């Protein structure tokens, strides 16, 4: 490896110190851009953070990652612009540039800095993931960490092309709309009866794939009364795009009265439903007509 400096000190006399100029440009633009990105773009990077503990967590992660990415993106973009303006050849001429083949110091520095950044991001992500109990993601039948305290289990049963919701602690009643009490830890048990679907409650920061024969658990604690949308996020056949429904987060008392009403209204149906189970054996698949 050559020890010749590729940048800076090697500049012939009479030329500007490109290294200093470029670094100044980059650092300057990063210092200006970083707060702007975090303040103005940060809040746009997901649903409102106050919707649930999970959306707040996701937005924090997003802000950190975008914050790390901003100076890196600016480094390369500033470089491209700088090079295109300063290191040009007059049209038609073929003048040779300096025969520099590398610089051990610059290369080592680059490797060290990128490695440290990457490891830092990975450690950050891991700590956040485990301390936030999965950050709203489907974490399999036995999540490594789960929130302390009581949880209300809600089973999400996906099938082509709708979601139904079963409340095992409320007599196993199965409803077609999702209603959740506010400020309660919810445990979603997501499963499927046919193909793979994905339960995506965007506004409360939950996504968990629904696999046949698998109980996929995700936690969420909605912290605001609101209406939200549930979408299917895994291609599941022709009406995949139509597989969505309205859902609500309501106050405790409203929830209790709603679920009581459902239990009474749906009692005849609940009686003939198969008993509550973490998974259901899928029926043999049939081809679409």
């Amino acid at each position, binding site marked *: 490896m050559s020890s010749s400096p590729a940048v800076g000190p090697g500049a012939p006399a009479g030329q500007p110190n490109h290294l200093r100029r470029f670094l100044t440009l980059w650092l300057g633009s990063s210092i200006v851009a970083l707060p702007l990105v975090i303040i103005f773009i940060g809040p746009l990077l997901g649903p409102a953070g106050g919707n649930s503990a999970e959306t707040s967590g996701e937005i924090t992660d997003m802000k950190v990652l975008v914050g790390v990415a901003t100076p890196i993106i600016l480094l390369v973009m500033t470089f491209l612009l700088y090079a295109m303006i300063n290191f040009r050849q007059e049209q038609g001429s073929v003048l040779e540039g300096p025969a520099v083949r590398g610089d051990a110091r610059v290369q080592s520095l680059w490797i060290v800095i990128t490695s440290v950044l990457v490891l830092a991001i990975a450690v950050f992500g891991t700590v956040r993931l485990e301390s936030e109990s999965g950050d709203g993601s*489907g974490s399999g039948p036995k999540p490594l960490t789960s929130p302390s305290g009581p949880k209300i289990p809600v089973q999400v049963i996906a099938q082509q092309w709708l979601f139904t919701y079963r409340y095992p602690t409320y007599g196993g009643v199965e409803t077609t709309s999702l209603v959740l009490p506010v400020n309660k830890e919810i445990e979603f048990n997501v499963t499927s009866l046919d193909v793979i679907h994905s339960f995506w409650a965007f506004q409360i920061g939950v996504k968990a794939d629904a696999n*046949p024969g698998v109980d996929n658990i995700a936690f969420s604690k909605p912290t605001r009364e609101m209406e939200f949308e549930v979408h299917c996020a*895994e291609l599941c056949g022709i009406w995949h795009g139509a597989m969505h429904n309205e859902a609500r987060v309501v106050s405790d008392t409203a929830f209790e009265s709603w679920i009581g009403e459902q239990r009474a209204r749906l009692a005849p149906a609940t009686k003939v439903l198969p008993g509550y189970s973490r998974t259901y054996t899928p029926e043999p698949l049939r081809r679409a007509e």
Partner: protein
Amino acid sequence: MSTTDAQAQAVSGPAPDTRPVWRRLIGFNLLTAVILGVGGYYLGWFIGHQINTSSFAYEKATDENDVALLLAYAFGVVGFLIGLGFANYPVERFLGKPASLREKEGHGTSRYFGLCTDHKVVGIQYLVGIGLFLFVGAVNAMMIRTELLHDTPTFVGPNQYLTLVGVHGTMMMGIMTSGILGPFANYFVPLMIGARRMAFPRVEALTFWLLMAGGFILASTIFFGGFPTGWTGYEPLNDQAVMGMDSYIIFFALVGISMVLLGLNMIATIITLRAPGLTWSRLPIFVWATFATAVLMVLAAPMLIATLLMSALDRSISTSFFIVGGGGSSFLFQNLFWFFGHPEVYILALPGFGIVLELIPVFVRKPLWGYRLAIAGMLGVSLMSFFVWQHHLFVSGINADLRPFYMLSTEIISVPTGFIFICFMGTLWRGRMSLTVPMLFCLAWAFNFLIGGTSGVVLSDVATDTQLHGSFFVMAHFHYTIVGGLIFSFFAAIYYWVPKMLGLKFNEKLAKWHFWLMFVSFNSTFLPLFALGIMGMPRRVSQYEPHLLGLNIWVSISAFVLGFSMLIFLVNVIYSMVFARVPAEANPWHSKSLEWQVPTPVPVNNFEQIPVIDSDPYDYGTPIPIGAGQTAPAGA
């Protein structure tokens, strides 16, 4: 030599064919191949219907017969290959006849329409064939964007929409695995390493014709109801789909076979056929990229072939590898598919790294900066790509305890990718850049791949992936890496090497229009898709929430402009090849690489004498004065 002479020589090859037309049609050629292919298809169909399939669930319920269609496709492909003449050599050898390279000595233009073992002919065949299927994929993309002009299904039905999405994705992901290795590595690797041919010339031809057969099979899915799974083909949706799914399975399996053979051929060629003196540390960086990609192809594609075989068996004779009710697992397919699928995306990205790093030294008149670091980056990326596949399954519920590992490995892969960027920037530093069209595409590559790469890091974090998985954000991310990375470098390679391949210059004004329009409209199409993903729009839907309508219309219009920029390219090709016909200089870019030192058109045997190599091909630049630094030895 006049233009016409040069061109005639370029396309006609050594021996003009004097036989009458009717005589030329008899024998092993494309016509025979099509006839035998169609014959094989109906034979397979017939046999399939003779097998008693009534014990299998599907055939009982519907009149669909997957056994028949799978056999029909398989027999059709075999018939097609026999018709092209691929069986001649093994059969002759089996019967004790002497071996020949006869396929290489074909006649005139007809060499381009049949089995030809000249790597330069295969390179051109690949370029045209891939161009054809790229066009089909692009037309599908235009139709997808037309549908998304409205927030409810209007233009096509939901079934047709999913078929469009599936054919677009599968065509692009399948055909473009050979997008750069097919045309450019086949054509230029032998020239760059001072060889007269590839190691296995018949295998080389076979990879191309397998891909072509596959492309038509995939397109034929529309006759069998299409397929609803997108390019990932997830089970059990795959198992539930109508017969059009079989087209997907056979297509991708053929692509897999083609990839394994192409990879093996490249590895063998690069190891065994390098000219004397061309040590590993003097190898052009594009050859290194080809090598790294070839290793990935050989190791990853067999997994795809096996997975699709299981899928085909599940569909046809109910083997139940993936069917939960029969003791199988839908996770199994996801694991197997992405174990192939993640290396696959690097199969798409790595050749682009090679193209860009190969081209920029020529246009900044400097040696490649950090040659060994670039190699380490490419090999590092290929190695790491086998350890990240479950990041596609972060929210699937599959062994969630392993997620921190996959998060780490995914983020680590950006370190070797970063090597490519520092080498790119180091090469540009204080160079003397000419903004030629290939150079513009290389600069655009850096811009696009940077956005693609950093958005990938955002997706590698489980918490953010929880929101973004399966959304338009992911779609924007991989279009930035594949279109922004692969397709931009593909065009860089076309504009750079066409003077050598065709002996013609492309019109530069049209080329610049093509570049600027493509660059601007590409970014204007895919940047808003990040926003749409963050706003919660899932992928692969033809209906969405009304408040997303405005951005979608913007994206669609940009996409149409992107499509229009491709038309400019087509116009340029036709104008330059049919009307203008400006002959190119032998070495218009003043490159020091070996492939530019041979005459245009390249002689059939490439080199009269095998060259002896004494340096790497990046011998650009003036040594800097003593005291300010010194030139390093080759390969530093």
